[in-house]
């Protein structure tokens, strides 16, 4: 594992925690500065969510580019980074997707240490249920596709699943009887805010400026290239730009004069009241349309599929909540007695093939990181790294090559239509 790359930041450690305890916790200082932005930077990243902050970190660490500004219209990690169900896995079907998501999973495995920030990554395993022999065949196909590319995944028999997840409905005559499952044991969950904050702190330590509550209201485009962005602080110039704004991608693209093949929809999630530990893994049923894991606080974190209409509302409808809860209770009858504590929604940018868009935009020095749809959280480390590579070199990293915008015209789509309930 690589040593921490946190620049000038003081190291967090058990010893430091102890010493600060003796000094009344007065020596910590803010994790990142909130500077007034300069008039000009080498690079500007629009979007202070996980992907944007990860990109800033990788620009500084991998490419030595520290004259970088991250601008965020609201607060860090307040969009989909802070609204998802925090599942990290790489059980995808296509080779290009597997390569990207597994590289991300590997980066997550070393991230707490690399950032010197505890992201609480818990590799508890992700179980995808099958309810019939035919669905079991479908999972076998995915597991084979993963194993052939050297990515860990295996099948579980019905008895093995019920042994590992005793709260699942064991009856054979229920609506969704357990026939078996696929498991990826390296998959798990992490603390979403910590991922954003850890990247922000490390990037800031290496000299990156992070400015919150600063929306981009326009681009200055000269000779076909972006030369600056209009902000509440006035025009801020740079040589190269990246956008990692998920559900705001179509709006931002419109400001730069192009359109993207995205459709923004609401994905909702919810948590139950806290319980003693009762569910050790992430358990999903795509046919049934829900998935659930237990947070460290004991709440059941529940997600389901997309709402059925294009929306920027950032709130989920009751009809979908009811549907998802019904699916969870179908799987885990004993959860029917629980109360829901909170329910919320985020605007996800879905692409036609359920795969992200990474690469140059129609404006040559503005690079895209969007289209992650419902599955962006798991890709934060790699999404930022690939955007940073594009911004620093002007060229694709081999991993991002298949994900360019041009694939919609060439027809080389990377179809992950069945990547999970909502690929989390």
């Amino acid at each position, binding site marked *: 594992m690589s040593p921490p790359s946190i620049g000038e930041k003081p190291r967090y450690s058990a010893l430091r925690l102890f010493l600060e305890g003796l000094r009344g916790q007065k020596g910590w200082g803010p994790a990142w500065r909130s500077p007034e932005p300069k008039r000009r930077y080498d690079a500007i990243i629009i979007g202070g969510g996980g992907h944007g902050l990860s990109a800033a970190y990788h620009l500084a660490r991998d490419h030595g580019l520290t004259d970088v500004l991250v601008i965020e219209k609201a607060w860090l990690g307040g969009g989909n980074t802070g609204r998802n169900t925090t599942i990290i896995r790489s059980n995808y079907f296509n080779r290009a997707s597997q390569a990207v998501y597994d590289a991300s999973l590997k980066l997550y495995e070393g991230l707490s240490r690399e950032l010197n920030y505890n992201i609480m990554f818990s590799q508890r395993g992700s179980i995808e249920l099958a309810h019939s022999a035919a669905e079991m065949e479908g999972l076998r196909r995915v597991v084979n596709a993963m194993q052939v590319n050297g990515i860990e995944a295996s099948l579980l028999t019905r008895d093995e699943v019920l042994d590992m997840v005793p709260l699942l409905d064991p009856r054979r005559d229920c609506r969704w009887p357990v026939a078996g499952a696929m498991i990826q044991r390296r998959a798990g969950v992490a603390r979403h805010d910590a991922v954003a904050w850890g990247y922000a702190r490390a990037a800031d330590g290496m000299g990156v400026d992070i400015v919150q509550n600063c929306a981009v209201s326009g681009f200055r485009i000269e000779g076909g290239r972006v030369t600056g962005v209009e902000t509440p602080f006035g025009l801020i110039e740079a040589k190269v730009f990246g956008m990692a704004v998920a559900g705001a991608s179509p*709006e931002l693209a419109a400001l730069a004069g192009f359109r993207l*093949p995205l459709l923004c929809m609401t994905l909702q999630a919810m948590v139950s009241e806290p319980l003693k530990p009762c569910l050790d893994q992430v358990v999903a049923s795509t046919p049934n349309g829900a998935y659930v894991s237990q947070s460290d606080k004991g709440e059941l974190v529940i997600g389901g599929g997309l709402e059925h209409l294009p929306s920027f509302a950032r709130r989920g409808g009751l009809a979908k909540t009811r549907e998802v809860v019904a699916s969870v209770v179908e799987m885990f009858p004993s959860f029917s007695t629980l109360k829901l504590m909170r329910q919320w929604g985020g605007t996800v940018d879905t692409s036609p093939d359920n795969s992200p868009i990474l690469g140059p935009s129609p404006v040559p020095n503005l690079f895209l990181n969007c289209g992650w749809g419902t599955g962006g959280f798991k890709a934060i480390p790699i999404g930022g790294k690939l955007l940073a590579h594009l911004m620093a070199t002007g060229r694709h990293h081999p991993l991002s090559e298949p994900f360019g915008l041009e694939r919609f*015209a060439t027809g080389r789509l990377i179809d992950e239509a069945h990547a999970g309930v909502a690929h989390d």
Partner: protein
Amino acid sequence: MTDAGLTPAPGSFPCPFCGPRDEAEFRYGGDPDVARPGPGSSDEDWARYLYVRENRRGLVREYWVHAQGCGLWLIAERDTVTHLIQSVREATP
């Protein structure tokens, strides 16, 4: 048939033929303002036709179909933030 200004109850959708019905009966059907490219059009034009949809905050025109009802195809003007439907009419070729 037009139902301009109709403010449906939450969770309901105004069908010009059936009246207000549960929104779960309806399915979003895409962008009605995308024109099919003619013969000899470029790959980029086809990609735009196939994949690029009106996708912004505020009032947009959309195809909807009363999939689990009368089956009528509709053109709705709907706000993508408030979800309020300003008008619905039958989509006629």
